[in-house]
């Protein structure tokens, strides 16, 4: 009973915002998108942000706006065909989140970490395949015929070596070595960005 009777202090700013929202609703016929709400402007029917920044997730636009800026995001979206904009927004949200977690290196820190993981796994694979060869040599020629198996191992080694050179664009290969020894200061798990159950939407 006492809690119900407690009088809440009037927040003038919140009241003003609510009034503005009401105006938006009356003019637009629907709730303004998260971007127009944050930017305090009328949400037009053809608002470029509206399909991708719904009002129930204000944090999504806030983080993208903080890192890239609304006008830059708008320009980026305008340059893309409509069917690619949702994915572009998701990738921008991912990059913005990465930049918030790691203000110095952002996504580049994640790339460096993952490249290190790939290198380590490839080394482990090479060691394991060398071990197979050793075992085969120890077991002698009367064991499994090595011709067929040897060609399989050679193929694996070839694909292993080739795959190590194809992990990023040419520009990435030029830029990345200077970040190779970096270990991110953040301890967050780096998830596959294109798995919907992780960081997207």
């Amino acid at each position, binding site marked *: 009973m006492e809690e119900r009777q407690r009088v809440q202090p009037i927040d003038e700013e919140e009241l003003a915002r609510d009034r503005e929202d009401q105006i938006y609703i009356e003019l637009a016929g629907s709730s303004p998108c998260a971007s127009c709400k944050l930017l305090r402007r009328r949400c037009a029917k053809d608002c470029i942000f509206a399909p991708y920044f719904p009002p129930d997730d204000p944090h999504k636009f806030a983080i993208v706006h*903080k*890192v*890239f*800026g609304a*006008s*830059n995001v708008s320009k*980026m979206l305008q*340059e*893309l065909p409509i069917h*690619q904009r949702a*994915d*572009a927004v998701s*990738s*921008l949200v*991912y*990059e913005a989140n990465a930049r918030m977690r790691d*203000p*110095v*290196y*952002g*996504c*580049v*820190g*994640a*790339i460096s970490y*993952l*490249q290190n*993981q*790939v290198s380590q*796994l*490839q080394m*482990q*694979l090479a060691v*394991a*395949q060398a*071990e*197979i060869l050793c*075992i*085969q040599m*120890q*077991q002698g020629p*009367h*064991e*499994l*015929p090595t011709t067929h198996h040897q060609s399989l191992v050679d193929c*694996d080694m070839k694909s*292993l070596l080739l*795959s190590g050179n194809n*992990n*990023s*664009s040419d*520009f*990435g290969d030029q*830029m990345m070595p*200077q*970040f190779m020894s970096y270990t991110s200061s953040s301890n967050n798990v*780096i998830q*596959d*960005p*294109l798995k919907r159950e992780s960081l997207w939407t």
Partner: protein
Amino acid sequence: MYRFHKLDKTTSTRCAVCKYFRRRCPQDCIFAPYFPNDNPHKFTCVHRFYGASNIAKMLEEIPVQLRAHLVESLYYEATCRIQDPVYGCVGIISSLHRQIQIAQSQLAKTQAEISVLDANFVVTNEPSSSLDESLVQQNGVDHGLDDPFNPWFY
């Protein structure tokens, strides 16, 4: 007659950012150490996606010794976004995840093969039966008895 143009001392020492905005480059310009005027492309790339004011805010928020790394990472991300306007460097991250999955499954497969080979090695190194020995002695020739577990034996 030669025309002497008034030398603008600030023109030659302006950083790429101040040159872009056609303004005077102050001595304490926050951009100057990281955007030299001999590489205008760097700033135009970064400015296209982040904007000068956002870059300035980011630079102000981190220690001086890390600002060069920040600028390089922003430049890298901006260049990735130019090459891939939809996914940017997130496409590279996704590709690396796939490579890790492939490498992990190959490693697991190879380690399983090692286990099988090790098991075969242990079996074939067990001492041979007395019957085999007698056959060898009878013929006087060691035929190098084949591994009965070798599939091509049959």
